[in-house]
């Protein structure tokens, strides 16, 4: 597992796809591949209100990535320093085995190069101390990038605020 976690604060996501466009622009990709993608489910009426899920799907950078194990050329790799899973395109022969192996559809096909492209958390940016492209430009800052243990804090603090009733408590 990579040391990082890309958390989507679903309450703030508006499904605008800024993340997808910024990702593609940063990687200069042609139409087709989407290393990250927002999948909208709904809207449907839930308890009299329309509700939709805007679900962010990057690569999850698994601890034991099946795509790396499946890759016959060694193009698909995991960085030892931080666990980021990336593809070295100079070694990729376009066999698509990683696409078959990944249960979540993370590796994408680039028709222009005939090779695979995937989310690498913008490792070049991360190495410069920056956030991934999608996280940096996210319209509502609903995408957060950091250490896994930091990311769970957002929901805990929000929940605490919602159950706290300072005005009407004696404690």
């Amino acid at each position, binding site marked *: 597992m990579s040391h990082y976690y890309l958390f989507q604060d679903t309450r703030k996501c508006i499904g605008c796809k800024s993340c997808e*466009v*910024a990702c593609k622009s940063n990687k200069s990709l042609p139409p087709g591949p989407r290393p990250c993608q927002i999948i909208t489910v709904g809207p449907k009426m839930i308890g009299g209100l329309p509700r939709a899920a805007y679900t962010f799907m990057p690569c999850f950078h698994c601890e034991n990535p099946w795509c790396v194990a499946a890759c016959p050329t060694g193009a698909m790799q995991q960085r030892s320093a931080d666990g980021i899973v990336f593809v070295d395109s100079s070694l990729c022969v376009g066999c698509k085995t990683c696409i078959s192996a990944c249960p979540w559809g993370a590796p994408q096909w680039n028709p222009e190069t005939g090779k695979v492209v995937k989310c690498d958390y913008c490792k070049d940016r991360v190495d410069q101390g920056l*956030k991934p492209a999608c996280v940096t*430009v*996210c319209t509502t800052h609903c995408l957060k990038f950091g250490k896994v243990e930091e990311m769970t804090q957002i929901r805990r603090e929000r929940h605490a605020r919602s159950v706290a009733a300072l005005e009407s408590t004696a404690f």
Partner: protein
Amino acid sequence: MEKTVYSLCFMCSVRCPIKVVVKDGQVKWVEGNPSVPGMEGSLCPRGAAGISFLNDAQRLQSPMIRDGARGSGKWRRAGWDEALDYVADRLKPIIDQHGGKAVALGERTQLATHVSQTFLKAIGSPNHFTHDALCKGSVNTACRSLFGLTDAQMGIDYKNCKHIVLYGRNIFEAISVKEVNNLMDALENGCRMTYIDPRVTVTATKAHRYWMIRPGTDLALNYALIHVILKERLFDAAFVDRWVHGLAELQDFVHDYTPQWAEAETGIPAAEIVALAREASAAKPSVVFHFGYRGANHTNEIYFRRSILILNALMGSIEAKGGFFFKKGPGEVGGKPARKLTEQTFAKIDVPRFDKVGTPAFPLPDPAHGVAQMLPHAILNEDPYPIKALIAFRLDPLMSIADTETTLKALNKLDLIVTIDVNHSDIAWYSDVILPESTYLERTDCIQQANGLKPQMFLRRQAVAPRYDTREGAMILKAIAERIGTGQFFPYTSVEELVRWQLEGTGFTLEDFDAKGFVAYGKNQIFWDRKDGIKLKTPSGKIEFVSSLLEKAGFASFPAYEPVPAPAKGQFRLVTGRNALHTHVSTQNNPYLNEQCPENLLWINAAKAAELGIQNGDWLDVSSKCFTGTIKAFVTDLIHPENVFMLHGFGHRSQLAARSWGRGLSDAALQENISDTVGGSPAYHDTFVTVQKASVKAAA
């Protein structure tokens, strides 16, 4: 070599502050300006597609002169001198023979609009018009009728809002980044959001209350809300006593507009209307009834927008934290605004405008913007006089003015059509000459006077040299002016020189913008004193529920509500709108945005679709009085049965914009050119269409 340039986005008209990273003459990265609250890196998807726009080969690359019939698509590339000479050689005789008034220039309001206005003033033409009237002319007039100030002079303190009511203001899809983030912060802090729209949008999916209102009846809802607020004395009495003129007249007027009456008209239960009135009142004055962004739906538009503003006045949410505020200019802190070329002295123009704005025929719309949709009528009927030439500056009359076929007929009557644009727009396709403008990443622009709670100035800076043979609009108009003998009104040799001239006397220099992309006149937010300090510009100095502006022009302040009839059998009210991926008619050909959203679909209610035998994805023929076109069906429960809906901006006719050409259907082609003749907006949602499965593309 890497450098950072602070600038302003222009993928839409919001002009978000951006940070641009340039390496070896190429734009490598764009993000929201990190120093600006609400931006902090953020971009909307259109802003994120900026680099692909810059590098797109399917945008205008050089001047072009028509080499065949108009709209035939036969062009020859020309040098700038040849193209500018071509324009001047035709413009000069028109001005000499018919006067400057025979020349009209339409544009989307932009940072160099004072240059365009100067161009026309110099030739003695009153016929400058902007896109604004098409978008929100009646909102502007409504604001002036109540406050003596325009909508552009008002802002919303989203961040501190406790309850916001949105009437089709699809704030999470028609995105202004700062507004979205400030509202997100408010929601995180417990702000309630009520969303009213005949169609479920992304905004609806985030709302605490959603009403699928019967289309066209929002005014009835508001009169009932006002009825409840006055009856139960839910208003801010101190504020209303001090600032409102005409409360008694309003009280008499809404007497019969009960929640029960509104329930029958709107489909919203009376008890829920009462509940909203009480809930909003509990949040006052930090409550916003949003007056809208686009406000161009119905022939009574001005009265609907007034009713929203009246609700805010009753809540005391004017010049209040978490409510509306009036934007403060540099004068508030003893500063000076940037100069404009229009401060020069011009010969007086004493002919009326082509749209008759400011005359008894059309007294109230803002002459600073005009009424664009009157252009086809003026040209076709030579009423009030012949128009012979049109300069279309990044405004596309063919896709923005309703009833494209009639607009085309009118344009064909012109002796000269010049387009200044960045895109292969439809108006470019039908022009005689195309003068390509440099994109926002390739040009420096005039100063943005950003009035608000804190007056500031922002600047668009050139990040890279033009990719193609393009120029800044301010330089293009100057070059034409020099060729027709009015060059003396354009005393600059570069846009940078023009900006330096603008900054004279402000106490700021161009270099002051280097560090962050903006300068501020002061540090603190300015709210006027709510007891005595609100500087209203109405004759009474009050918020005029009974409006001297309206009444002097012969219009009632409170005309009786006219019931909205259901569509005739087999007909639907056509409604249009936006999503996050496209700006008006200008981004549909962008490689990334086109990939995400290549065409529009016709939303139709599932029960109605079943009656017509229509299934999801079917090709449909949609017919209005003006046009019949084909579009694919999106069958859904999430739209009112009286409506059909399509996104604005599709169905492009320019074949040189190959990705968007012929994709989807143009709403403007279907819409009838009718207006709110008091406020000035078009009534885009007062067109009815029939829908049936298409005969031709049914198998596709």
